[in-house]
């Protein structure tokens, strides 16, 4: 894949990836490969406009963020560290007793509007959030959902994809982390979900095929969404690589859930530095 990422963006992404590796190493658990593939996506959702950061306050001026693909928790926490929303010591306590940084994010966190852990739920929640505010005449609030491509096997998602379009919820932006891999192998072998672009189009969505490792491209597409250039719901089919950024984790199934050894941790940090 030819990256369009600038040097500055690449450095940002590398810092986040280092945090992911270190948090998994220190915490003794976590989903490294999925998180590595979601770094630029989550960063771009939160940082597409620094004055418009997302939180879960009921302040109607704020947006919503739902991590449907719960295995991206480490990416979310590490992006929050990058953006100054959490501290180094908070991330170091990932998975420790009493830490609010659990295996999957909860709705108690300021930057998460759902409790993740099981797949196929976030888009339905987003519909409810959107309809509630629509009923109050507040149609300008943006709701972001990040979902895995394997997660699209879940039938509940297609009930929701149909309903988002039916209600014309153009304030919903779905980003699909399209890394082509799930636990048992390639999507095409486990359960073929392509062609996604045609599927979403036929369901009435505004479809954007983007490079999921290009912060620049992601941010521009998200800004286009926030500018309300479409009256349809928006989906970003973000092409990514599972385990991206570290040579020995790229498309390596064993890294779906694996704690790095000290040597692997050091090697990863070295590659990303």
């Amino acid at each position, binding site marked *: 894949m030819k990256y369009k990422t600038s040097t500055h963006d690449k450095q940002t992404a590398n810092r986040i990836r280092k945090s992911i590796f270190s948090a998994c190493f220190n915490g003794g658990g976590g989903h490294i490969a999925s998180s590595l593939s979601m770094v630029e996506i989550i960063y771009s959702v939160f940082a597409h406009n620094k004055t418009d950061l997302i939180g879960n306050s*009921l302040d109607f001026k704020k947006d919503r963020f739902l991590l449907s693909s719960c295995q991206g928790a480490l990416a979310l926490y590490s992006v929050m560290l990058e953006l100054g929303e959490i501290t180094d010591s908070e991330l170091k306590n990932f998975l420790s007793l009493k830490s609010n940084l659990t295996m999957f994010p909860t*709705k108690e966190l300021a930057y998460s*509007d*759902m*409790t993740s*852990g*099981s797949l*196929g*739920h976030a*888009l*339905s*929640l*987003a*519909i*409810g*959030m*959107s*309809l*509630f*505010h*629509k*009923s109050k005449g507040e149609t300008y609030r943006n709701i972001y959902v990040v979902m895995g491509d394997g997660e699209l096997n879940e*039938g*509940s998602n297609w*009930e*929701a994809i*149909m*309903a988002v379009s039916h209600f014309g919820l153009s304030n919903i932006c779905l980003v699909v982390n399209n890394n082509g891999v799930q636990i048992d192998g390639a999507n095409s072998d486990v359960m073929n979900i392509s062609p996604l672009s045609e599927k979403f189009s036929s369901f009435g969505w505004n479809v954007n095929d983007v490079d999921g490792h290009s912060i620049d491209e992601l941010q521009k597409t998200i800004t286009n969404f926030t500018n309300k250039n479409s009256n349809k719901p928006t989906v970003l089919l973000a092409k990514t690589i599972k385990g991206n950024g570290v040579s020995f984790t790229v498309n390596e199934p064993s890294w779906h859930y694996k704690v790095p050894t000290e040597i692997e941790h050091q090697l990863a940090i070295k590659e990303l530095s």
Partner: protein
Amino acid sequence: MTDIRKNIVDSLVTLNEENGNVYVVVVDSKTSSGLSHFADRFPNNFIELGVAEQNSIGVGAGIANEGGKVFIFGISTFLLYRAYEQIRSVVAYNNYSVTVVGMYSGLFYSDQGFTHRQVDDISAVAGLPNFSVYTPYTEERVNIAFKDAYKSNSPSYIRIENVFSERYSRTLEPYPSISNNIYTLYSGGNDILFISYGISVSRCIEASHELSLSGLNCSTLALNKINQELRDEYISIVNKYKKVVFVEEHLVHCGIGAIFSQWMATCKLNYIECEFVGVSEDYAENMSYEQAILFYGISPKQIVDKVLTGESYE
């Protein structure tokens, strides 16, 4: 014809008129749940999702996350079981103010067969974290259940049985009663305590009248709400009797009789004799509601016979 759905929709309309923030979610079930009046009156608060039970619970949770009070209606088996993970892991765990209204519970749909007949919902819901289970037995209790669920900041399940049964509109006196939002105790004597919910309560009252002619003085504990926190309150009532008879349109091995038995065992009330009247594990072929009630021995006369003779109708 009696139709408890009228009370339900009137309760919801009143709640939204007086307090606002009521959201009704349906799964192609507006007509079957009798909700057209609410939909017409508050179109912005009425959400039709089509035949999509899983989505409905998630959408309800999303509304509740923003502060809405949500009531989701559907035929109980479809809503509860198609969307059980959403109910468990999204609504219950996150303690959302979402009320799942299980319509046509109990044996009502016996003519439709196993897919429709709801006789294990108490078992499925009573153990979920944060959930309260409402099992109203009169029109008044239906109104109370919806009001309570609205006031609650936690999830609820409301079990609505045969909506056309005139038993919902019966006057259950003349026994002196102690009543609160949780239960009613119809006190007719200390020989036997019936414990029941839903429209089976009126069957117990009928059976009590009949049994009094045989010299047995019976009381009935009618349950409007069930959850673990109420254990001690209920056990303090049960403790005064030597024999308890549970009556329910539910599988007996996992219904209210089973829950109370576990509570009674925990509290060492081993000296109280128990009888169970309800749905056995013998699957009834498709049959009418009335035939199903007779098949499982839940009619008032069969309850009397069981108490007097111990004869099983399974």
